[in-house]
């Protein structure tokens, strides 16, 4: 995966005692990938509709906003911070954009720009409070997230805002359009893929990415090496704001509405994806390819269970168990070293 140090996977026989095949080591190293492949295999045996192209496309489209949120989180998590306000931000920005277009007749791109301002402002506020004022990120973003959810309820009276008639087609195209006939993927999937590539370049190919991992490894040593720790940590939260806007934009465009939902399960899903991605990497670091894998994993399990007719509750239980299992595999490997 994309550790800052060695972008390649474990090299064969790199200084390790080769004592034949070590099952435990193999499982702890590739547990996440094995479980993903196993789930895909089981689901495709149980139901031959599981591998249908159309269904996969829908699943990818639904998973795109989740990936955008998880990408932002990957950056802050890599620096050792949490951002729990991300879905509050997505939900508030989504409601604001839709209301501005539907109720106030704003041009769609102007409304999106307003949403962007909200997201960048709130993200930067998080960054300033955590990085410059020194408040703990967990509780600070919990508080700002709560405020944003409250704001969303107030501006929309706690209701869903539907805009199937008032949202312009060009706006809706960002959610359901298929710009590229090849592969027939929806626009959000392309946007998410583009963002993932940009984030991957940023985190594993640039100086900034190296510095971010240095901060995550040891903020004091990073500071004493001349790295601007505060600015980078703050920038991470602003980045989350950007990603939240993209998620809000594409999800409202797809459903032609802003749904009144606290976004709690989306929040957990985004974290689950990022942690699964870390568990899948050789040195258990948060990384972009891992996060992408995590989102695909969660979407696959979701889709498989839906096809089997399971309820939301059962699906959440299953995803929770998978996350626990992935962490257990990783710990197993770590405790043996």
């Amino acid at each position, binding site marked *: 995966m994309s550790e*800052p*140090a*060695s*972008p390649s996977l474990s090299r064969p026989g*790199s*200084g390790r005692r080769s004592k034949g095949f070590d099952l435990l080591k193999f499982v702890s190293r590739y547990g996440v990938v094995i479980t993903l492949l196993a789930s895909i295999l089981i689901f495709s045996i149980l139901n031959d509709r599981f591998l249908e192209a159309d269904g996969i496309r829908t699943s990818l489209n639904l998973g795109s906003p989740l990936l955008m949120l998880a990408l932002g989180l990957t950056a802050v998590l890599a620096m050792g911070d949490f951002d729990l306000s991300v879905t509050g931000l997505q939900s508030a920005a989504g409601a604001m954009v839709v209301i501005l277009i539907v109720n106030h007749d704003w041009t769609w791109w102007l409304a999106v720009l307003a949403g962007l301002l909200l997201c960048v402002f709130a993200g930067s506020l998080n960054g300033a409070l955590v990085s410059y004022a020194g408040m703990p990120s967990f509780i600070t973003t919990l508080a700002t997230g709560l405020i944003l959810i409250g704001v969303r309820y107030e501006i929309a009276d706690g209701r869903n805002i539907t805009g199937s008639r008032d949202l312009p087609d060009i706006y809706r195209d960002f959610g359901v359009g298929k710009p590229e006939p090849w592969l027939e993927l929806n626009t959000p999937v392309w946007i998410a893929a583009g963002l993932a590539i940009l984030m991957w370049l940023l985190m594993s*190919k*640039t*100086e*900034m990415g*190296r*510095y971010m*991992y*240095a901060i995550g*490894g*040891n903020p*004091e*040593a*990073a*500071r*004493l*090496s*001349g*790295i*601007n720790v505060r600015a980078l940590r703050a920038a991470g939260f602003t980045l989350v704001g950007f990603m939240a806007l993209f998620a809000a934009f594409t999800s409202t465009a797809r459903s032609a509405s802003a749904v009144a939902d606290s976004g709690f399960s989306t929040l957990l899903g985004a974290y689950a994806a990022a942690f699964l991605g870390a568990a899948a990497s050789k*040195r258990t*670091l948060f990384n972009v390819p891992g996060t992408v894998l995590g989102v695909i994993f969660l979407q696959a399990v979701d889709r498989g269970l839906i096809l089997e007719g399971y309820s939301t509750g059962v699906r959440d239980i299953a995803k929770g168990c998978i996350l626990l299992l992935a962490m257990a595999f990783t710990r197993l490997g770590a405790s043996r070293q």
Partner: protein
Amino acid sequence: MTGATQDAHASLLEVVGATKHYPGVLAVDDVSLSIEAGQIVGLVGKNGAGKSTLIKIIAGAEQADEGHLRLNGERLELHRPHDATVAGLAFVHQDLQDVGDLSVAENVMLGLGYPRRMGVLVDWAELRRQAADALARLEADIDPREPVGDLSAAQQRLVMIARGLVQKARLLVLDEPSASLTDEEIEHLFAVVRRLRDDGISVVYVSHRLEEIFELTERVIVMRNGRLVADEPTESLDRASLIFHIAGREHAQTAVQRRTSRGIGDRPDTETVLEVGGVSAETGVRDCSFDVRKGEILGLGGLMGSGRTELVRAVFGADRRQEGTVRVNGTPIFGRDPAESMAAGLALLPEERKTQGNIMDFSVRNNITLASLDRHRIGRRVPAPSGRSEKRAADARIGRLSIATPDDRQLVRLLSGGNQQKVVIAKWLEQGADVLIFDEPTIGVDVDGKEGIYDIMEELAAEGKAVVFISSEFSELVGVCHRVLVLSEGRIVGELEAEAVTEPAIVEICYSQH
């Protein structure tokens, strides 16, 4: 535990042949001593002489590799600190260990079993009464209900001593108890210690302040390099002989030999590259001024807590300065953050390599290039590191410094302590500053490794760089530095140059300041 009949001056605690190894260090080397009942014994020695390890062995916090303890002539086995408490040994450590949010009474009784009502409920009134009794014996005017965090340092120490009384201690070990106490508070402390002695309690008093040793103790034990080098009645010693025991001679000789063989003399007559004027900081640095010239190696000596690390951190901008100016190559630096100082040509190799020097989960390569990553770009204006360029630089440093690692991709966490230190050095050599501050670079490094680090500093000086070298091993300073500044309590209190740089001279300045 109580009512044991003890003859005056019968041996209370004996340490027999105690030896303790740490990786690469013989911390305590075959130490035998005996502490008599009702005696005040001073324990002195430089930092790293083995005092703390010896105390930890007596406290049950460390197990001796060899040797054993005897209490009242019977073999004493200490497997954990609680065993020492039960045996009647009490410790007041240098860094106070009480719990600031809890009340005085709770702290006095902490871990000794609170009095109870109906089996489960704490009897607070009884708890306070017992604590108040103990404090009264110390004539300490402290309200048992007050949170310990609100007390002065002196009062907190009395709380810890009261704890010892409640546990009916027969031996009390006071580790640097007078640090940060006023003269009046020290007088009260002495009175308390003497009263405890009159009650038959033995006291081991650890201090760097020799006046206190002469005033208070009846016997002095001196440790040096893990060995017990003197154990004599206080009255048979004078200041000079005590300093002689602390400093030692054999070490000083080799350092002086090294100094002469290398031809280290006057500081070079070159331009000044680092100017520090009147620097003070909240960390305890007070009005420090000095300068360093091109090609000079300046030593900073002093005891632990004398403010050397704090001074260089304030100079480098790792901590905020309250006052003072710093110029590097004539450029003023304002101490906003380390990046500013680095841009001006100043580098600090911090004392704690694990917590401040390295990113332990980064590879050797990525640590070495971390402070100079913008010189390893794939294109001049593309801020992306080139792995090939980084590898070339890292491999060169690994070779030059003989860093023992399988390759440049090994995680620093997996290297030995000495090699981790070399990685820190490699990072800053790679960064290429004009002034390099080495804070205790040789701690935990073996003899050959130390010699290698001296060589690096000398090479840097020969290249025209300026080096500041902090060490608690004064012989190192003697062997390497043109000039040595001695710090005490955050101030520069002495300066030695050329032939005047000797270990006894440094020790003399350190110990004459209290």
